[in-house]
């Protein structure tokens, strides 16, 4: 094209096809194209490509329900974990008052936040069990049919490499699933199991830098039994309305299977 008309370059033709020329320049190119059918066909081809491309992708210019989540990834939001922690704390106080009345005086004497993790862990485990184990249709967020995903997801949130969900089949308990929940105001994991009689138990895992390793401990309120222990920064609690002996076996099995 530069041969036939040095004043019109290929760049001019692109600019014409893309509508990037002022009016006077457009008229000049149109006059050129009228005399140069090959170039005119090429420009028409480019314009057809343009409208084809625009049409191809125009439908993607849309909102999705998850858009708000996209701009608020968990680690960018500082207020959400706090809100969750506040809610959990409120729930804890409520549950303590309602179920384990004998703890209440201690709670009022000593602010809850000053309790060491080894003291708060069994109570949080009891609360989680009471809230979730009673749920018929939605006891967990992710069911056992997605066990691998559940382990990867919660492992990531708790910063545990290769988190293995304990297998309690030998003791007659099958995994129902699990969920993310706040433990000491941080992301924690809860796994729920069920036996053939429909009895459930929960395994709670939480990370706390202030944790101090403990031996197995036992807590009991009404019919609810909890075994708990702290291993490094990770706290574990096994809770269920089952016999203390069975629960101890479950706790020992979990201790064996969780990586130390």
């Amino acid at each position, binding site marked *: 094209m530069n041969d036939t008309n040095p004043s019109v370059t290929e760049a001019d033709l692109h600019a014409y096809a893309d509508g990037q020329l002022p009016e006077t320049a457009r008229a000049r190119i149109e006059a050129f194209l009228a005399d140069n059918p090959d170039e005119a066909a090429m420009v028409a081809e480019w314009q057809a490509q343009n409208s084809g491309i625009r049409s191809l992708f125009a439908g993607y*210019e849309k909102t999705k329900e998850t858009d708000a989540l996209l701009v608020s990834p968990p680690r960018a939001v500082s207020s959400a974990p706090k809100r969750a922690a506040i809610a959990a704390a409120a729930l804890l106080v409520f549950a303590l008052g309602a179920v384990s009345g004998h703890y209440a005086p201690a709670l009022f004497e000593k602010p809850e936040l000053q309790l060491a993790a080894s003291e708060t862990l069994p109570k949080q485990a009891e609360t989680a069990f009471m809230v979730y184990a009673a749920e018929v249709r939605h006891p967990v967020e992710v069911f056992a049919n997605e066990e691998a995903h559940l382990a990867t997801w919660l492992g990531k949130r708790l910063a545990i490499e290769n988190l293995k969900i304990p297998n309690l089949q030998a003791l007659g308990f099958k995994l129902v699933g699990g969920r993310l929940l706040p433990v000491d105001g941080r992301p924690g994991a809860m796994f729920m199991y069920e036996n053939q009689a429909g009895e459930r138990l929960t395994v709670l895992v939480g990370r706390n830098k202030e944790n101090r390793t403990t031996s197995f401990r036992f807590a009991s309120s009404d019919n609810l039994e909890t075994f708990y222990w702290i291993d490094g920064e990770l706290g574990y609690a096994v809770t269920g309305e089952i016999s203390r002996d069975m629960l101890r076996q479950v706790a020992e099995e979990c201790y064996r299977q969780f990586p130390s």
Partner: protein
Amino acid sequence: MKTPAPETFEGQILALLPSLRRYSRSLTRSDADGEDLLQDCVEKVLTRRGQWRGLNLRGWVLTIMTNLYRNGRRGKARDGLVELDAAVELAAPDVPADPQERARLDDALNSLSEEHRAVLMLVVIEGYTYSEVAAALDIPIGTVMSRLSRARQRVAERLKADNIITLRRPK
């Protein structure tokens, strides 16, 4: 999930998402890749918010997305392509909505290199001027023009290749 207020940084990004989604899909070869690129871009934008100079947020985000696409997506597995789905319903007065032609155009675009595709989409989808493309990609304007030219030539060749269906030309 609470929706961020429109005047906040997150709110402004949220308002841009639909058009960012269109651009990310225009760069990629499948719906899933388009959403991945969009998510990667938004994540980067949120972590780099301190670097935004307060002008032309959209241009800043588009540059980040284009660079992510050019730098990070090369060599990504090219299998598992998903057909265009969202665009099918839309009205397109100039272009026949023949699914076969759309598929051929999609295929032709997928044959472009990342560098060529980014230039073409910034011009065609985002309506960037050539100098804006040069600034966004940090390349000379001559390079913009040669990439644009090669991209169009390549698409035209692919569309003509088996000579069964060509795009209808406007008169």
